[in-house]
């Protein structure tokens, strides 16, 4: 059994790979002691070969001495395996956002990653949802219902939140504000895509790909580009790591 662990900032994802397919996966909140959570999550797969990825990959390496790869490589492997036609990946997780450009064989040829701030990440959406009193799971669908164009100018989470508050106080209906929040994230994704360059097929991965409004807005902004979302975008990193574990296992 080959197992990939993706320790994200918000959640731990685990995927188990055998033969040529995902045989199991799990998603749990990171909690305070992520290494214990990992231990509990992978207990059922013994014996197995493990590769860790994600923000907390070095913690896992320290505790269990598993090999590590970056989430950039992991997402590239995961997406290329599931969606071989994809030329570019947009991965938006809890605390960072990335655009990864893929070569013919699925190798990483270029990538962009946000720097230290939370702008345009899952965390940004989470804070904005809370500020508008939406449960995160309904935030995207609520924003989809709005058709009116209002605009948020700040990408900084703190400034954007004050803009949201001032819109609320001007009486702008909340689904319009919600849509503006989503549009600002979509614009940021487009600007990262333009910096890296993209081909004809853009694949989404990471937890934010579950948000229908973000995907819809990005689709509208990209003409003649196919935008695909895999069935379970949150586990792409873990999946990529598990496939890499299988590859390295074969080498040995």
């Amino acid at each position: 059994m080959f197992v990939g662990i993706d320790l994200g900032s918000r959640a731990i994802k685990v995927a188990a790979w055998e033969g040529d397919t995902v045989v199991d996966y799990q998603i749990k909140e990171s909690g305070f002691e992520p290494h214990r959570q990992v231990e509990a999550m992978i207990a059922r797969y013994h014996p197995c070969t493990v590769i860790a990825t994600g923000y907390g990959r070095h913690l896992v390496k320290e505790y269990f001495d598993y090999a590590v790869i970056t989430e950039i490589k992991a997402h590239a492997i995961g997406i290329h395996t599931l969606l071989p036609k994809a030329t570019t990946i947009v991965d938006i997780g809890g605390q960072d956002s990335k655009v990864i450009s893929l070569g013919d064989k699925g190798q990483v040829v270029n990538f962009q990653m946000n720097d230290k701030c939370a702008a345009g990440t899952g965390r940004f959406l989470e804070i904005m949802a809370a500020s508008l009193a939406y449960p995160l799971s309904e935030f995207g669908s609520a924003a989809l219902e709005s058709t009116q164009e209002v605009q948020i100018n700040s990408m900084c989470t703190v400034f954007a939140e004050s803009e949201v508050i001032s819109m609320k106080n001007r009486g702008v209906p909340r689904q319009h504000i919600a849509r503006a929040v989503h549009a600002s994230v979509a614009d940021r994704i487009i600007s990262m895509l333009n910096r890296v360059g993209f081909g004809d097929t853009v694949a989404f991965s990471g937890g934010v790909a579950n948000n229908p409004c973000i995907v819809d807005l990005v689709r509208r902004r990209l003409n003649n580009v196919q935008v695909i979302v895999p069935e379970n975008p949150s586990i792409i990193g873990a999946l990529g790591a598990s496939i890499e574990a299988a590859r390295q296992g074969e080498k040995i």
Partner: protein
Amino acid sequence: MTTESFEIKAYPEMWKDLGMDVERFDKMRLMLGEIFRKTYLSQKNRPLKMAYFDAMVAEIHGGRIKELLAAKAEGHPVIGTFCVYIPEEVVLAAGGVCVGLCGGSQGSIPDAEKILPRNICPMVKSAFGFKAGKICPYFQAVDFVYGETTCDAKKKCWEILDTMVPTYVMEIPQMKKQSDRTMWLHEVKEFKAKVEEIAGTTITVDTMNAAVKVMNGKRRALQRLNSLRHANPTPISGKDVLLVEQIAFYDEPIRFAAKVNELCDELEQRIARGEAVPSKDATRIMVAGVPMALPNWKLHNLVEGAGAVIVNEESCIGTRYYKDLMAEDGADMESILTELTKRYMNIDCSCFTPNDERMAQVVKEFRESKADGIIHYSLQFCHTYNIEEIRIRETCAKEGIPYMFIESDYSPEDVGQIQTRVEAFLEQIRG
């Protein structure tokens, strides 16, 4: 020196005499010692001759300061600088001491931000904060600071710094036309007159020629070190070379050159034995961009922590400081100063426009260092390097050189992201 016994030596009496905030400075001393232990002394298989440079760190706030104060007591001026454009030859010829001032630490930034705007270059803020907070013995020991006009942040900060320590400013041209070269020669002459006035001495052709030889000797030693580290496999870590380059800015130049040459002798033996740091197949990275003032080891630490090795710094802390020598044994002062301005005009700082020679220089150093990829490193708000980065990126794309750009400051908060980006870049190079 073992890892456990290393500490940065404390000289509270001397610091008090220098008017420093002793209690605060002592905390910074302990922190620096801790970081140095973790970053440097934990490295495996270091050259034995690095011991001198480790000792220079241990004595950074003591031994070297004592030497500066002794020079001052004998009537020699001590001049603080911030840029490789200030001609050290002139200071040495007047019997003076030239020290590059502190500007690489997060610790002094809150002191600066009490006065300066927050959104300016961290190096300028850090340096300014050291003086404002009275937490740098070098700043306290210098007779005056000689600033320059290589960026807007520095240019305007000198005006404020001047209220705390006498600060003179040399105008550095922004273009390299004949009129700029003429102006620059004039500035060098003014600088010489100022140094002579403060030293109470006249610089002669002989003292100037002797100073040129000293600086050439120091630069030759650094060139030798850089070319030895270009060996594949490399015999020394990038962190260690960076430390030597940083110490170049505050050590006594003749002794420093001798110690660098001793290190080089050891490296030659290591190369002959095929010794590799950290390993034969380590990915080789060249860094290009802004200087890394002591103790800014952030990028080197991340890159080498990921198992790669840095083999070149195309930077004011690296090759931009020592790649050019100047003609020796000039016949008269006018021709020496003309040669000197020529030498300094070869510096390809991004403050110049156009700066095409830097593109060629980056590619040349990439080939010479046998690097596998380039990381362009800029400090936040450094407009000239941040914008010139676009042309470096295009040059690398054209030459097929794997390339990544990192913009950062001295704070630890982006370490996680940069680590991920560095590791992904290494994965990309390794395929």
